[in-house]
């Protein structure tokens, strides 16, 4: 990597106020990522606190039901705090501590990254403030209270569309006003360099484990690896160690909301244009004259107008494919996995399951799919019930 670019994507499009800080962050990260003590501490947290390695589960019933390849599920939902987000925050908050920071801030969409950051901050004795779109604080009220229980202060962001994009805006504003003692813990493989690289490296534990696990049981690599993509951190983590394996197909599932033929979607690659926003050059859903478009997804975690720059690059060079999955397809997959395998997925992860349902019947039984189940679905149960017209009290 040079200059924080992946092909033509990425970069550091941020105010001068933050430049010295991101340069320092890069230098510190370059040092600590190979520092044996840092690596050992992080590994210890992964094993004793986060519950790693996560299981690679053979979904036998689903495999039989779909009548195609063997389907393996990488169970990031079984991590502490219930999603893959913990991998990245343990790394970043530990890094912040090594850098002498005493406070972390973060954006959150569904609340998963906020909860994970608040958790790591509690464990590592850091002050923590979370920015969350007001609409999301309502969609995910339980997660707001969870963060508060963990000692974090949650700011409901009322500007713009009141969702993830606006939470990022507000967290960036906060960071420019207080960089000395504070690290902005980005939740996805986005933002200015070095964040897309840092987050990808901490998340790549997913594919490192999955690759070993599948080789141990099947003695061969999978034919296809599937993950959902908002900013794209679980997908980058799930793809990364498979990138050199040319024969492994990589598929990211974008949120198509009501459908990419409507204007209610969050499919940055399918429908977005090249742009520069939130510190990076990548694809974004935009209106005329470069205004960032309001986006829609039933999933608060995928409700973001952009995609991480490394995904844009993988898309361009044809190394990964990206497919749109609608709200309805995700809901069907959410219910399908619950009944078929007794696993309630996060509605984000259900987008990946939905694609497994579509693609598996077109593949053969001697093939293998690994799908990343990035989070558990407890947080979505009330919303899905509402969608089905069932009123329940949380």
């Amino acid at each position, binding site marked *: 990597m040079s*200059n924080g670019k992946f092909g033509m994507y990425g*970069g*550091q*499009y*941020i*105010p*001068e*106020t*933050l*430049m*010295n*800080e991101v340069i320092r962050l890069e230098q510190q990260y370059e040092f600590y990522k190979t520092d044996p003590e840092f690596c050992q501490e992080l590994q210890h947290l992964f094993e004793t606190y986060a519950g790693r390695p996560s299981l690679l589960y053979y979904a036998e019933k689903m495999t039989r039901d779909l009548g195609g390849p063997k389907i393996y599920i990488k169970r990031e939902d079984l991590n502490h705090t219930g999603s893959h987000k913990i991998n990245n925050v343990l790394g970043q908050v530990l890094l912040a501590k090594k850098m002498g920071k005493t406070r972390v801030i973060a954006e959150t969409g569904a609340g998963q990254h906020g909860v994970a950051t608040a958790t790591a901050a509690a464990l590592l004795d850091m002050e923590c403030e979370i920015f969350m779109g007001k609409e999301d604080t309502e969609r995910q009220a339980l997660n707001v209270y969870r963060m508060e229980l963990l000692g974090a202060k949650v700011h409901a962001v009322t*500007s*713009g569309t009141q969702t993830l*994009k*606006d939470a990022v*805006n507000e967290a*960036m*504003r906060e960071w*420019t*006003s*207080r*960089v000395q003692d504070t690290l902005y813990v980005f939740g996805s493989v986005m933002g200015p360099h070095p964040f897309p690289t840092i987050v990808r490296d901490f998340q790549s534990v997913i594919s490192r484990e999955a690759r070993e696990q599948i080789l141990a049981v099947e003695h061969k690599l999978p034919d296809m690896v599937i993950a959902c993509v908002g900013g794209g951190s679980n997908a980058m983590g799930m793809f990364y160690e498979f990138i050199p394996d040319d024969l492994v197909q990589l598929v990211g599932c974008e949120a198509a909301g009501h459908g990419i033929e409507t204007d209610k979607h969050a499919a940055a690659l399918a429908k977005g*244009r*090249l*742009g*520069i*926003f*939130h*510190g990076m050059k990548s694809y*974004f859903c*935009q*209106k*005329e*004259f*470069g*205004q*960032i478009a309001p986006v829609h997804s039933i999933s608060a975690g995928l409700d973001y107008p952009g995609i991480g720059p490394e995904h844009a690059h993988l898309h361009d060079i044809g190394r990964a494919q990206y497919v749109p999955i609608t709200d309805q397809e995700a809901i069907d997959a959410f219910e399908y996995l619950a009944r078929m395998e007794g696993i309630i997925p996060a509605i984000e992860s259900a987008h990946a399951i939905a694609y497994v349902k579509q693609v598996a019947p077109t593949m053969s039984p001697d093939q293998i799919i690994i799908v990343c189940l990035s989070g558990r679905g407890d947080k979505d149960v009330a919303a899905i019930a509402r969608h089905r017209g069932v009123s329940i009290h949380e």
Partner: protein
Amino acid sequence: MSKIENAFQNGSAFIGFLTAGDPNLSKTEDYVLAMADAGADLIELGIPFSDPVAEGKVIEAANVRALKAGTTLSKVFDLVERVRSKTQIPLVFLSYLNPIFCFGYDAFFQRCAQVGVDGIIIPDLPYEERDELLPFAQRHQVHIISMIAPTSEARIKRLAQDASGFIYLVSSMGVTGVREKITTDLASMIQTIQSVTDVPVCVGFGIATPEQAKTMVQSGANGVIVGSAIVKIMEAYGEQAEPYLRDYVNHMKASIQA
């Protein structure tokens, strides 16, 4: 090459900011002319953006108002064209990078030159990334205004050496918005800048009162930039803001002229 240097012919410069299209484009035209008439030396015109991440609440709200009123980049260019038939006051844009990128760098700077925009401030374009625009800006003789921040430290000299037009010295950490106190040691930053360049230094972020403006000039600044305090007048008086705007600009210019 530039009209920007004219802004510094009349003592310390007063630079006033307006969000184009707040409350509407025809009023913005009137207000630019009124500010020029009331003693402003340079006008900074903000191109409204959906996600102005370097702005505080006041200017963010102005961006929302302007976009609601149907303001677009091409309409803002047309506005400048109309203004230019009536005044030669130096004029710079403030824009986030995406609207410029989306318009096309060459087309954007060509249109700037055509309508008479002398420079551009891009809050999300640091020194390291500006090479992708600079050739186009230079081809059309539009200055990219360099920003220097309280955290710039060892970067100051390099940024200052390569600056043109004027230097935008950010007074404080954080986003735009009125501040009661500015605690950065600006005098020593200004000294460092002036030790390597003759390009004028203007201080912005948080300046609202004549006293603050005067202090900046006493610290060695060649000019002051006022945004949120003016936008607050827009917020309060909308289409009836002209007399208040004139009065304010008058007072501010007087405070730094003495």
